[in-house]
């Protein structure tokens, strides 16, 4: 802040000051990019320690109980487990990092490269989670504005109770209810995935169920944000100077609520990539959630490892994007 004032004294030219801010922003971005390195390093170290040092010898588990020493050795050679753990350029430790940085995750138990599996699963998963996420978001934000406006009234209480009830109903119940009535009883949607169905057909019902199940928690969260804003002094001022309610709500409250909303939204995006474990399992959708469940069941460490790493990378990237969004939306944030 001090620096900026001095800059203003020396160059009372707005353009210059903007440049000055821009320069600071560039250096801020570079510093934040450097920040990613230790976090990615931490994630890789954590997965290495958990899988290799604590988890024990994976090859024994892959080979099964009655395997001969020969098979075990073959498997060890194939996955590079015969190499030394540390202390060599070709050690498992170095290879773990090398493979992660080049997105080479090896082959899954069924010999298919892990990266191919992930590429194939990403489509159905994102087709499920992206519409689900944004529909929930739009509905929750518009409803939360209304509810926050009616705060303390009968409707507010009813909506809150419904929200908390919705949060408390086990996810499985929503799925069962939807699957039984909408798909099985009334035949509006296919009950289960089958390869000859078009994508919109088999993701429609899971999306609806996901929206209904997620709405309670989201609505309650955004209501709290909106209420915080509505109690602020600037809202009272806006009313006092005679602005209409719609103008106050949309021009002032919604705009100021954008900062916490952006955080929530941007940080939720990387998790969309993981798909929805339960929905994909119960509707048989061949996405990344399904891939994960299969991998957990088969103890396929290579798939789990790859998914962990990719989701961590995405999370860190989007974390950075949130911080940059802050800086763009809120001029009060300094880049020190």
């Amino acid at each position, binding site marked *: 802040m001090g620096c900026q004032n001095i800059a203003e004294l020396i160059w009372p030219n707005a353009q210059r000051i903007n440049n000055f801010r821009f320069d600071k922003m560039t250096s801020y971005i570079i510093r934040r990019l450097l920040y990613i390195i230790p976090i990615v390093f931490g994630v890789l170290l954590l997965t290495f320690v958990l899988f290799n040092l604590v988890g024990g010898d994976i090859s024994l588990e892959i080979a099964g109980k009655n395997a001969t020493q020969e098979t075990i050795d073959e498997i060890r050679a194939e996955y590079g487990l015969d190499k030394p753990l540390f202390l060599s350029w070709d050690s498992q430790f170095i290879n773990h990092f090398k493979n992660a940085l080049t997105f080479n995750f090896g082959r899954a138990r069924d010999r298919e490269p892990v990266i191919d599996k992930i590429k194939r699963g990403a489509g159905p998963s994102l087709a499920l989670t992206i519409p689900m996420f944004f529909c929930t978001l739009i509905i929750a934000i518009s409803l939360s504005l209304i509810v926050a406006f009616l705060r303390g009234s009968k409707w507010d209480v009813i909506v809150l109770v419904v929200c908390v009830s919705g949060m408390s109903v086990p996810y*499985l119940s929503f799925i069962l209810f939807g699957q039984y009535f909408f798909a099985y009883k009334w035949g509006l949607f296919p009950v289960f995935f089958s390869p000859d169905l078009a994508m919109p057909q088999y993701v429609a019902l899971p999306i609806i169920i996901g929206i209904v199940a997620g709405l309670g928690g989201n609505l309650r969260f955004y209501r709290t944000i909106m*209420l915080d804003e509505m109690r602020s002094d600037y809202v009272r001022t806006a009313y006092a100077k005679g602005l209409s309610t719609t103008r106050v709500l949309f021009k002032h409250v919604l705009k100021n609520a954008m900062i916490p909303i952006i955080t929530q939204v941007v940080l939720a995006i990387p998790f969309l990539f993981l798909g929805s474990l339960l929905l994909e399992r119960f509707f048989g959708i061949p996405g990344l959630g399904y891939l994960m469940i299969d991998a957990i069941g088969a103890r396929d460490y290579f798939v789990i490892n790859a998914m962990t790493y990719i989701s961590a990378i995405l999370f860190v990237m989007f*974390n950075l994007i949130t911080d940059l969004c802050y800086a763009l939306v809120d001029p009060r944030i300094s880049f020190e």
Partner: protein
Amino acid sequence: MTTTVGTTIEPELTDATRSAGSHPWKRFWRNRSATVSLIVLGIIIFACFGTLMISAKEYHVQDLNANRQPPQLIPFAPFGYDILGRNIFWRCLFGGVVSLGIGLAAAAISVIIGTLWGAVAGWYGGRIDNIMMRLVDVLYGLPYILLIILLKIAFEPKLIRLLDRIFGPGQERTANIVILFLAIGGVSWLTMARVIRGQVLSLKAQPFIEAARALGLPARKILLRHLLPNLVGPIIVYATLTVPQAILQESFLSFLGIGVQAPVPTWGSLAAEGVKAINTVVSFWWMVVFPSVLLGLTLLCLNFIGDGLRDVFDPKTKR
């Protein structure tokens, strides 16, 4: 000196002059949904833990003649029987003990680790804060479900071997439950650490802490005597909200088939077992409905109590 000041001021503080904040519990009792929830939750907890002596023996008893029998009062099976002819009533009660136990264990772990972690990071600041909170960031970056699975894969075989050596062979079941307790607890302290750190940062700047420092109190005393009492509110609120989350996470793992292993029941695994028994010809509704309702009711109560406590301790969310 201080005692005389205290005695002269105390009588003047009547109910009328006290601020709303000095009656936190009165405000809690005025919140009807929280009070009702507390009573309902009390009944559920009492029913689960009070009958533990019976349910621990009955939950795995099989009566193959009674399999898939609907709810009935004679013989006593108000929730019916499952596919293997086990009495779902006793399984629900015993499952409740396990589910609530997981919730409480997670809350306890998150209170201990989260509070210490957040308080130390916030108090010392600077580089220590930076390193500690980056670690929290790393763990936040991993989806919690993956983290639980990683912890389970990594530590379960070790723990089984360790327990076998101590208590003799056949400890898989104990190891499975302990790992789940630890894994779910191990991911639930992150939010607590962040909240507590924020609180400590704002408290640190307040005059009474400055005064304590100026008086030369050692850091340990300031943390225990002056900071901790001011942190009790957020700790209670977030611990209460951790319990339903942990129970939900366990049920989620059970739905996926990687939670507490059979025959030990939890509400989540009971519901998941019930789902498996459903087919298109006959639906054995009692196998799904009773555990789901118990699970939902408990979560509902815990969420309402958590909200009520937050209203009490955080004056910002007052209506």
